[in-house]
């Protein structure tokens, strides 16, 4: 019987890794055979798609293991300073929580409402003024949120109306600069409070 040479094993592993990497990074498409290309389209036009498929293997693994990279914000926004000025969470920047599902992350347009006059000499203010002029917006990265496959439909408004304070779920952001993920939004976190407050724990309350 021939023994398996280590180099063959290594070769096999190498191929497997290369394949995995290639597939994982989307270089090779192993999904269902695509329909034949139809129609000429316009010259230079490329067809991009929105899909629930993850862009690569790493993203899929991250989603599955609920591994979220630490968010890196475009600017070190000081919540503490703004909250210190008595600006409520829902006053300018996250105002739609009182009427709708989404809190929203403010556009640089919102910042400039005050900062086209206030603290205009500070470096960060100069930065955002410059961005506003160039038409580049603040690409905030999500701190709180649920992975797509958990299909959570969280609606802020009923919680705000029920007088659940922002800090309950989002932690002491008023004492932070950029928001830090200090509260772990596990399903248990939500269900426990729902049970306590006698809100519905029917699956369809949040997952539909």
């Amino acid at each position, binding site marked *: 019987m021939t023994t398996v040479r280590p*180099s063959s094993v290594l070769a096999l592993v190498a191929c497997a890794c290369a394949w995995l990497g290639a597939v994982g990074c989307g270089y090779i498409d192993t999904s269902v055979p695509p329909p034949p290309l139809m129609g000429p389209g316009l*010259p230079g036009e490329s067809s991009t798609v929105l899909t629930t498929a993850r862009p690569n293997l790493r993203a899929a693994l991250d989603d599955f293991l609920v591994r979220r990279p630490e968010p890196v914000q475009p600017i070190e926004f000081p919540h503490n300073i703004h909250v210190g000025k008595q600006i409520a969470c829902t006053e300018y920047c996250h105002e739609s929580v009182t009427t709708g599902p989404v809190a929203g992350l403010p556009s640089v347009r919102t910042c400039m409402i005050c900062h086209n006059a206030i603290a205009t000499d500070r470096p960060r203010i100069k930065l955002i003024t410059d961005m506003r002029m160039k038409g580049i917006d603040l690409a905030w990265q999500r701190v709180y949120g649920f992975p797509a496959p958990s299909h959570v439909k969280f609606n802020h408004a009923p919680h705000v109306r029920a007088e659940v304070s922002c800090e309950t779920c989002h932690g002491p952001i008023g004492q932070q600069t950029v928001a830090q993920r200090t509260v772990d939004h596990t399903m248990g976190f939500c269900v426990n409070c729902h049970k306590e407050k006698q809100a519905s724990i029917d699956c369809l309350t949040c997952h539909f």
Partner: protein
Amino acid sequence: MDRRSFIKLTAVSGTTAALASCGNPENQLVRFVPDEDIVPGQATWKPGVCPLCAAGCGLTVRVMDADKDVVRDGQAGVVKIYAAKKLEGSTDHPVNHGGLCTRGQASIQVTYHPDRITQPLKRSGTRGEAKYEPISWDDAVAELVGRLDALAGAGNQRALALLGQARTGHRGLVVQQFLQHFGAPAPVRWEFFGDDLLRRANALSFGKAQLPTFDLANARFVLSFGADFLGTWNSPVSQSHGYGAMRQGRAGIRGAFVQVEARMSQTGANADQWVPVRPGTDGVLALGLAHLLMAAKVVTPASAARAGALIDGWSDGLPAYSPDAVEKLTGVAAAKVERLARQMADMRPGVAMIGGPALAHTNGLFSALAVNALNGLMGSVDQPGGVSFTPQFDVAAAARATGTAPGAGASLEQWAAGTLAGGSGATQVLLIDGANPVFAAPRAWRVREALEKVPYIVSFGSFLDETSALADLILPDHSFLETWAENVPESGSGVAVATVAPPAMAPLHQTRATVDVLLDAGRRLQKPLNLPWESLEALLGATFAVLPPAAEGGDAWSEAQEKGGWWGALPAALVAAAGAPAASGMTPVAFVEPQFDGDAAQYPLHLLPYASTTFYDGSAAHLPWLQEMPDPLTSAMWSSWVEVNPTTAATLGIRDGDLLEVTSAHGTLQSAAVLTPGIAPDIVAMPMGQGHTQFTRYATGRGENPASLLAPLTEATTGALAWAATRVKVARVGDPDGRLVLFAGGSHEEGRHGPGEEHR
């Protein structure tokens, strides 16, 4: 290095590459500043107008925030916009009463279509190659203006032509005024399923060159000759709304519905009685019923005298249309004719309608006049439960448009023949606005060849299709959600309606509203047209301002923008004239056998290319939801097919799904067979709309186009295409090859299922 080291190296680097080089694209996305403050997650509702057919249903559009991919200064990124998410029928709108048909629901995909033309284009290859390069709007309009100036400079204004769909309302006014003030002939209006024949008949019978409106909700008896009024004909949503009420909207009263046609349409399936009739003989049946009504002492009301006088023998009681004569001509048993007449006499009020295949014959005008006379006799004209005509808002008068009233433009057939003949008046600059005759017109009219002879073609459409692919300059219009949308419905409402809607969202691409482009070009000409309106919005504001407001001291224009339109009782001065007066002294018409193309021995079957519920005439085939929507009668998706009667199929050895060759004297095609009992044995039917050679990724190269088989037969008086007058022969050429995709019956890889079988 040796082999071992090389393999080790690849393994290590491969693995590292797999895990490390996959950057998270989201971290690299640039976000641009939105043009306005966007409130996330909350919907607002805005008015809209559906553009996919002439009915002009009012919409409410659900608008929410969305992230749009953009490239700015070479940087790819996203920007928040307000985007239309869902279309609903507008609840108060007098045409659709909150309903919206399947095409209307799908029309939102026009705005977001991946193959939409996003900016002005100039042809860079040879004509027909569909190779274009982008140009700026300034350059594009300058091009157009240059061409028009050249015509005007040479005193050749008549060489400008516009070929497009029938446009009424404000957009129609601007188009007409532009051409008229430039000195060009009236537009060549063309639609495959155009209803000009019916308009002519109504002008003759009732003095109104207009499509009819039916008060089905109050009718007890509805008799339709071939009209697919619940699917595609006239104002389908309005008619469906009335139909539902006719059936179950009145306590204890259920209206009856009889459909007369040779192929069961989606509408016909709902009839209490389905009466097949020989092609082109619907008018005979109508007069047969009139004959019996008269025999039963039903007297022609004075109001119907005009319609009746157009029918030969009317005043004598229509002796030529006895039940036996009718049976001979139509194939409908005399006893059935008598029974129908009895039902009509008993169930009042009743109304008759005619449309679709029944009029698509060389004797179509006779049939239309016959049904009009029948309606007159039934006392249904301008009565509850009957037929009437929607008062039309006279946009031209409200806009104080100047110039003499325009005549009708040439027909497509005339225009093509004239262009091919050449000569001094031949078109040198052609504007294309919402018509695709290269796809659907009979090949014998040689529309494509005529277009190829025109030196310069401009298209305003949003998509490349068979016709616009011949354009030299493309000036893409906004989609209906991105611009001021308006419509003055010709039918479907008891009261006058002027629908209007401000843009529901900002334009996605670098498109421009065609009306504004025309007005702009008009101002830039060396001899400016001096049309008094700055833009479509300004024109709308001007015309709506003269409408009476809802309440004293109100403002009709602001109210209309809120509500999505104006409707109610029009002051007399704002009601448009009825249309061409009837030709007095017209010889009363009698039945003449319809002509068919193709020798009956060689081509034994009649071809019926019908308006598809999903694609209509093919103009909606590019919308993926409609391609995937199962056809109401066959459940077919992404396909075209040939409907064949089972007895005929058995004679020809055809089984369900088999590949057939259908041949006329003008062309041939191959398509899959669908056996259906709802079609006469001597008829085969195909839905219009598939078989595009150029119409976005979803419709190109899909299915077959029955227009390629059509004979150029027309109705003599109006020139209307007799699209149901082509004879064909059918032969089985192969086994099912998977081209027919059905939703019903499970997986169809073999392509067969039993006739009439329904698993799902």
